[in-house]
């Protein structure tokens, strides 16, 4: 059995800000980490591996060459293989183009049984990439999985969590699942694995390796949605500003609440 995990590098803090004069995003580009949901999904891939016979795990990410850091982290945690997919032609990819690129990468690797994605990323936050990959591969998907109940020879039985209900679903392999937090506790990277992978280079795949090499299907050109404009959020509110001693502030608050008949 082959299990492929899609993981992504995201900004480490969400303290991204906007310069009020230029409207430009200020962010600390060097400060990155693995998308937290992808830590859960890696752990889920190990859970499936443990329940299956002879299963291998393979992590992939699409991003700039520096994104191979998250692949190393996956290897240190316990993933067997890793590859990066990176090409200037992928720049400006929206969800459709990202999912298409990843689906092409998965076809290039081939022979997969289960694809595991995080529920969502903390930067894009769309939760759309996983289901779109499944559609491009023509395989079923189950979102928000919290438990792998069993692994059968041609199917998984999983529990997935919606807002106020849960579903137990049998999904035939090959398939894709996205992993919610709560069900899997990510392990720490192992020092021993770190040492043994120290000199490994992460293989890099680019457009020329993929089954579909038409650049029109990737990056900005393969993206139906485009950003027309970015702008800082606006507001026009009349604000009463209160800046008093804590005692006085408490009195003022009581007055405001009294006025509105809450007290």
């Amino acid at each position: 059995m082959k299990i492929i995990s899609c993981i992504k590098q995201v900004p480490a803090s969400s303290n991204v800000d906007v310069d009020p004069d230029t409207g430009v995003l200020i962010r600390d580009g060097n400060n990155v980490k693995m998308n937290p949901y992808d830590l859960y999904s890696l752990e889920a891939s190990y859970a499936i591996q443990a329940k299956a016979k002879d299963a291998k795990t393979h992590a992939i990410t699409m991003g700039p060459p520096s994104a191979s850091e998250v692949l190393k982290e996956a290897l240190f945690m316990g993933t067997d293989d890793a590859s990066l997919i990176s090409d200037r032609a992928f720049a400006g990819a929206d969800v459709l183009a990202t999912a298409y690129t990843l689906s092409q990468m998965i076809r290039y690797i081939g022979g997969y049984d289960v694809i595991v994605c995080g529920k969502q990323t903390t930067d894009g936050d769309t939760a759309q990439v996983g289901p779109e990959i499944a559609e491009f591969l023509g395989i079923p998907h189950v979102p928000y999985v919290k438990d792998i109940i069993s692994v059968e020879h041609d199917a998984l039985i999983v529990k997935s969590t919606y807002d106020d209900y849960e579903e137990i679903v049998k999904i035939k392999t090959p398939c894709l699942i996205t992993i919610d937090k709560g069900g899997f506790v990510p392990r720490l990277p192992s020092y021993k694995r770190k040492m043994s992978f120290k000199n490994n280079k992460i293989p890099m795949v680019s457009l020329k390796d993929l089954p579909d090499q038409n650049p029109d299907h990737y990056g900005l050109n393969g993206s139906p949605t485009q950003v027309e404009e970015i702008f800082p959020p606006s507001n026009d509110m009349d604000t009463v500003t209160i800046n008093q001693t804590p005692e006085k502030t408490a009195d003022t608050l009581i007055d405001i609440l009294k006025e509105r008949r809450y007290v």
Partner: protein
Amino acid sequence: MAYIKVNQSKVDQKIADKLQDLCPFGAFDYEDAYLSINAACKVCKICVTKGPNGVCEFIEDDRPRIDKSKYKGIAVYIEHHDNKAHPVSWELIGKAQELAKTTKEEIQAILVGSNVEHIAKEALTYGVDRVFVYDKPLYHDFNVETYTHAVEHAFKTFKSNIILMGGTPLGRSFAPRVAARLKTGLTADCTMLDIKPDGDLLQIRPAFGGNIMAKIHTPNHRPQLATIRYKMFDKPEKTEPNGKIIHVDTADISTQTNLELIEILRQPKVDDISDAEVIIAVGRAFKKKEDLALIEPLRKQLNAEVACTRPLIENGWFDPRKQIGLSGRTVKPKLIINLGISGAVQFIEGMKDSECIISINSDDDNKLFELSHYAIKGDIYDILPHLNDRLESILKGAS
């Protein structure tokens, strides 16, 4: 092909430094006097609009254009559970009607299910012109594969310009499947929608994980697909039904699926903050979970629901259903008191329509103050104990 072109003749070290500073995604590399754009580029075009004049240029797509006049109608996918429509569907119909004022398009509803005639009729009472009904026993339970076959059929038959879906957990799994099937764009969790006279939908949402909004459009693909969270828009008034119910022949639609639902388990209900009249929202100012006890007297007095920002969910202090914001719940209470919250755009989008907003923060320089009716500067650890004393003495006085 569309791309950002760098006019190298105008580039020197200074220009390169400027552009590297300007780009929020670190997408410029300058090596051997050559400025290139790497894979981190998101084509936000800030280098074109705000960069040094004439250095970066956006080259428009010269591929064939689709004929937009062939696609008409704003459709809403009607989500339902236990034979009841999810109210987000009606909210979206209200928004569709607003948009249609500009384009004079028909309002459509797509309904897939088993024995759902009553939902189709209900849709008509919200002013839908045509409801496309896919009704058969196979559709009794939601199945992302069979339902995608049905919605694909609906688009290919009725050629809607736009399809809107609720950004519910179900919608967020279903909409991307439909988008990839139809090879079209999808914008998740829009907070505003607008439309151009030619029918191009403007999808507005916070973007790039920052305090910034993006206006996104789908210039050359149909349908235009977007998801919108529950409670983002108002439910429309009911009207005299005037539309038609179209029963679609489902005989030729694929029923292929590799999914089998074994069991649905109900989760215990958590008090829903979406419908709360009074909310106390707490943020990272609270250093320890125990400190939340400071808000107890106020919570009791106001009979308020307690909600929080995302970091507190990440700390495991609250059930995820208590989170306000873009990736949490949208709330519209009569009163919300924000305690130690910085006002990131993702939080604000979830509560900005509250009737009365009171915010307490020790730092003047936070984004929530300018959106509040009462901006109170101060430390929660100083103010709350005094407030609790006052509340106590009022209670004593009353008894």
